């Protein structure tokens, strides 16, 4: 390590937002040709720290050194000119422009699209990317967009790349491809800082791991000598049990039967085609698939929020009575005990009202109850208080507006409320999206408690490791069709990942 020179040195960086300290006294070195993983819980200040390096925020205290020289990075432009490029979690691309136009955006050079496109192709070849420089961003898949972001910083001659949770949106195969590219960059002498919540990936790709906790730098470890348990403990600050429990389903009974469900969206695009499956009580059925392959429509169809074109959805009661859910009012479906908690990408889009307090958000579920013309405010308040306590929601009070809470806390409130209605069916999508390990495990526990209580859980998830550990069965969707129904105890990531991108027939031919 001593032989290498630090490309980037951070010395005693501190950043405050009002009274909140986002980073305090952080010192960190990044060396040439290394991949450094930055680990930390939600709100531990990883992104803030990276934003200071890439010129979006300016540190209140401390200094940044680049190749040994102290530098001032006051704007993204300064960062570019030093050769620091950041790939944000939310892509910063203009949808209606082509890849090339996005890549040269804001650069001082004369625009010559064809020449730029040639340079882009050369970069792609060198590192093993695959993109069409003339393709418009809105026609691209998430992974292509990410590629454009990476090429963009390389085009500007970046020496140091910062990737903020790059794998959150990728399939395992795409992740593997990305890692291949990162390794090529490393060989080329570039340095990479990668932020991720997925510990397995940290171990796969990085040379060194730096851990932040509550805005402070805790330690750094050589990846070769690290293991998942140690890293988690250092990140959380105390020992955490990392096993997701998977109790055997007790007395599973059919609860929701979906038969040949087909859904077209408003523009006539087929979102679900001929989907059939059964969700049983006391069991978790996982739904895997690349985002946008029909998961949302499937859950909403069950909850009565989505227009269905053909097929059936039956709710089977304890007395074996069959009720058709299609055509029923969402309220009636809710009364049967079907509960939907969908965490969209922006977390607040569905389910909670950002400008209302916790207690008022609880009322969204209960305000119709009771016979009085006045709403019952007492019970929602009690419920909010109990969720805050049980799920350790970090909030100043139950009257605080939901939008002021951090993402993890918002999700706890949403999932907590849905569970509190004592559902018979719990539909949940992306319940741990963007959550750190600790909060994620709290949510897994909650879901497992529901399972033990005999609830039929439909769990749409992104992290395949978790799906494989948590669920009993996994339904894989590809392009709105069922490409496989697997026993989670027997399958593996490779198979699920394969089915996510290939339809059934082709998959089994392999």
């Amino acid at each position, binding site marked *: 390590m001593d032989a290498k020179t630090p490309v980037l040195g951070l010395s005693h960086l501190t950043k405050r937002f009002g009274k909140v300290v986002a980073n305090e006294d952080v010192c960190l070195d990044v060396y040439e040709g290394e991949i450094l993983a930055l680990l930390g819980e939600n709100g531990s200040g990883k992104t803030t720290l990276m934003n200071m390096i890439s010129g*979006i925020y300016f540190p209140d205290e401390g200094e940044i050194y680049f190749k040994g020289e102290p530098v001032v990075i006051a704007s993204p432009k300064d960062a*570019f000119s030093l050769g620091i490029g950041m790939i*944000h979690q939310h892509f910063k*691309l*203009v*949808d209606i*422009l082509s890849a090339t136009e996005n890549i040269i*955006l804001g650069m001082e050079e*004369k625009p010559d699209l064809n020449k730029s496109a040639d340079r882009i192709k050369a970069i792609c070849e060198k590192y093993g990317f695959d993109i069409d420089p003339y393709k418009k961003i*809105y026609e691209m898949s998430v992974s292509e967009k990410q590629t454009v972001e990476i090429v963009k910083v390389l085009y500007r001659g970046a020496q140091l790349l910062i990737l903020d949770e790059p794998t959150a949106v990728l399939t395992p195969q795409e992740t593997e491809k990305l890692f291949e590219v990162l390794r090529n960059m490393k060989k080329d002498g570039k340095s990479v800082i990668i932020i991720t919540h997925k510990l397995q990936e940290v171990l796969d790709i990085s040379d060194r791991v730096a851990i932040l906790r509550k805005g402070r730098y805790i330690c750094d470890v050589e990846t070769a000598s690290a293991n998942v348990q140690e890293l988690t403990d250092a990140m959380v600050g105390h020992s955490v049990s990392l096993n997701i429990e998977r109790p055997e389903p007790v007395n599973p009974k059919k609860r929701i039967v979906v038969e040949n469900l087909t859904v077209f969206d408003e523009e006539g695009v087929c979102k679900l085609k001929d989907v059939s499956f059964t969700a049983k009580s006391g069991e978790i059925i996982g739904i895997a698939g690349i985002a946008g392959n029909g998961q949302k429509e499937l859950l909403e169809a069950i909850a009565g929020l989505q227009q269905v074109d053909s097929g059936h959805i039956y709710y089977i009661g304890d007395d074996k009575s069959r009720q058709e859910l299609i055509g029923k009012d969402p309220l009636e479906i809710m009364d049967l005990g079907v509960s939907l908690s969908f965490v969209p990408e922006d977390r607040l889009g569905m389910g909670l009202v950002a400008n209302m307090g916790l207690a008022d958000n609880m009322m969204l579920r209960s305000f119709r109850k009771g016979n009085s013309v006045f709403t019952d405010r007492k019970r929602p308040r009690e419920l909010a208080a109990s969720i805050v306590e049980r799920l350790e929601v970090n909030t100043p009070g139950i009257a605080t507006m939901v939008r002021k809470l951090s993402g993890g806390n918002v999700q706890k409130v949403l999932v907590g409320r849905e569970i509190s209605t004592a559902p018979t069916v719990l539909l949940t999508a992306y319940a741990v999206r963007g959550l750190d390990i600790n909060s994620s495990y709290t949510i897994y526990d909650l879901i497992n408690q529901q399972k033990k209580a005999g609830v039929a859980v439909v769990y749409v998830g992104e992290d395949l490791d978790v799906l494989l550990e948590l669920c009993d069965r996994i339904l894989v969707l590809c392009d709105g069709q069922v490409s496989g129904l697997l026993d989670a105890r027997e399958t593996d990531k490779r198979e699920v990942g394969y089915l996510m991108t290939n339809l059934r027939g082709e998959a089994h031919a392999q």
Partner: protein
Amino acid sequence: MLDFLIRFIPRAVGQGIPLMYGSVGETITEKSGNLNLGTAGIMYVGGICGVIGAFLYETGNKTLNPFLGIFIPLGCCIAGSLAMGLLYCFLTVSLRANQNVCGLAMTTFGVGFGNFFGGSLIKLSGADVPSIALSKTSGLFSQKLPIADQAGWFGKIFLSYSFLAYAAVAIALIASYIIHNTRTGLSLRAVGESPATADAAGIDVIKYKYVATCIGAMISGLGGLYYVFDYASGVWSNDAFGDRGWLAIALVIFTIWQPVHSIWASIAFGGLYILHMFIPAGTNLAIKELYQMAPFLATIIMLIITSIRNRRENQPPASLGLSYFNME
């Protein structure tokens, strides 16, 4: 037929040019993500400022110096529109006030401003009709190309306009070229689509919004100036400019944010605007009223059509109407 076209087209163009200025100016503004509904007011202010300048110059001098006679109203018009553009930017970009509300307020303000000073000038001039005529300045502004009369029907249809009319076409073409073919245009489109992206790419979002909106306002203001000194022959009467500002804003949508389309679309709209003058004499007045509805009906139909179209390139700039906060 040719006879009809020779009478019809020049009038349609005369009606269309103010719309062209207004819509090109507004398109440039909207490309930066600012929805300036104050365009109607800005065109009023541009018109009345030109009138004030011309009035002061004309009443002080017996004979007009052709250069000053054009330069003074033109300068006043541009200065007035620029002030409106700056005001709009200050409110919506710097103070991040709601763009719709500010735009509407500025339209109300602009119309009132025009009527107030217009009324005052009418009083000052002591005219016995409620209007003020600046025929000498108008003479300078409405000079046709010298060869127009010798070129027969071609001259009448294509060459019989004043310099401001040709300038409008030139501005539309230049604006189109800049937006689609230059680095500045690329940055401008990025600012209107996604200011956060532009910011991260090192583009000065605030500067682009200010500059684009102010240039747009100045161009729109020229529409008012053209209306008074060329179309209306230098006669200002209150409220005569009417709804043209709103038509200009509707044209922006019709032209799917491409100034080059504004050239033919504005003239077509101008044609619809004057269609009622060309129905045979003696037709029932009610029918005439129906003809006068034509441009507004066309606006409604076209808004419906454009909202059905769903090609991504034809959509409004994605961040249109939204304020940009530097810190996410």
